[in-house]
């Protein structure tokens, strides 16, 4: 482990907006003077890695975005046997020693996904309103034990019959007060709060 580097995980179901959140967060981190890099864990293609490179072109060196294959086991790749992600992170840091923030995006998975503490210092679990207002009540270690729970796509809640107040109150209850942030990654709403919570872990767990 390199002590000056903060390692951050992003987990959540398929399509909840993990990639969009990272793409919205990277410019905020860069504005704050940080030097991030991204490791994506696609299930079957390099689509996420390509998407991040394309959307952050001109802002983030494409070589600082790498994809890791997970052999159809996204949870294994970040929890039970994170070795290939550790290797990818070590190779990135060797190539770009200036990186101070490594963002690991897990492949979309179920609600039990958590990150190995050896791989990341903290992790976000990303839900979205279209999955249904009931999601926090379903619990699962991802929802209850993540360092920060993000409820994304708040702009479409009204169209998918999701009562944001109920969803937030349920999330607060099952997480016993741990942070919950509402975001719209397309407009940047909530992203400063996400960055602030991320930064609060810097130096704490190193």
């Amino acid at each position, binding site marked *: 482990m390199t002590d000056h580097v903060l390692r951050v995980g992003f987990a959540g179901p398929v399509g909840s907006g993990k990639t969009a959140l990272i793409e919205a967060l990277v410019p905020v981190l860069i504005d704050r003077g940080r030097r991030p890099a991204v490791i994506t864990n696609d*299930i079957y293609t390099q689509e996420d890695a390509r998407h991040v490179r394309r959307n952050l072109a001109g802002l983030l060196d494409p070589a600082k975005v790498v994809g890791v294959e*997970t052999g*159809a086991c996204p949870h*294994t790749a970040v929890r*039970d*046997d994170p*070795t*290939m992600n550790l290797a990818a992170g070590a190779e990135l840091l060797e190539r770009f020693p200036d990186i101070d923030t490594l963002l690991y995006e897990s492949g979309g998975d179920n609600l039990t996904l958590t990150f190995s503490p050896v791989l990341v210092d903290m992790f976000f679990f990303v839900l979205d309103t279209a999955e249904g207002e009931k999601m926090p009540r379903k619990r699962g270690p991802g929802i209850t034990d993540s360092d920060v729970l993000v409820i994304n796509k708040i702009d479409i809640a009204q169209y998918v019959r999701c009562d944001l107040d109920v969803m937030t109150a349920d999330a607060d209850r099952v997480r016993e007060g741990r942070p919950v942030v509402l975001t719209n990654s397309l407009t940047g709403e909530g992203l400063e709060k996400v960055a602030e919570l991320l930064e609060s872990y810097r130096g704490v767990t190193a």
Partner: protein
Amino acid sequence: MTAALDSLLLCLQLTDSAFPSGLYTLSHGLEGFHQAKAVDPDSMPALLTDLLRHSVGPADATALALAHLAAGAGDWDAVVEVDQRLHASKLNRELRLAATRTGRQMLETARPAIGGEALEHYAELVAAKRTPGCQAVAAAVVYASGRVAAEQAVASDLFAFAVSFTGAALRLRLTDHRRAQATLRATAPVIREVTEAALARELADLGGCVPVADAMSGRHERSEARMFAT
């Protein structure tokens, strides 16, 4: 505990599919064959034995046997030579990268679990980039450090390969959970044969010859979609 039993337990630990060295991310060429429609459930076991006999056996298993002998004798120049030759024998980038990634991670996990001066020394050589750190050579140093005999070490690593390969076959729907176990058991005589050949092979003969598998791997490296790193 007898030394033999202790060796057995270490072999079981290192070949356990839960041992964290990233093997589950590799299909060992199988996904390339699958994408090219060059393998089906009936021919998958034959592909496994072909790769054992003509690729893994002459290359990785031979490197393991030679590096085990050299590490046991403290001859680090010889360990490095075996490592470099094995790395050079892997024609595709994805195969070289997989070998060094899994090798380095195996080393990092084994150092605190098994310990010993040999492991520390080899890890230093890898960190200093004086040797590539291929999985088979890292495994050789780990097994030698745990005082596991060369024959058991080679057979164990070949078995770990076979388990990983059939695990990938399962995820690619080229077998099912019961047929996979039958395939593994049926592979035992081949593992015995390949182990014996690897223990007798010399450094000059290290390296497999599997042109079709190399071509499949080359295509896989550039494929649009894939689940596995190899």
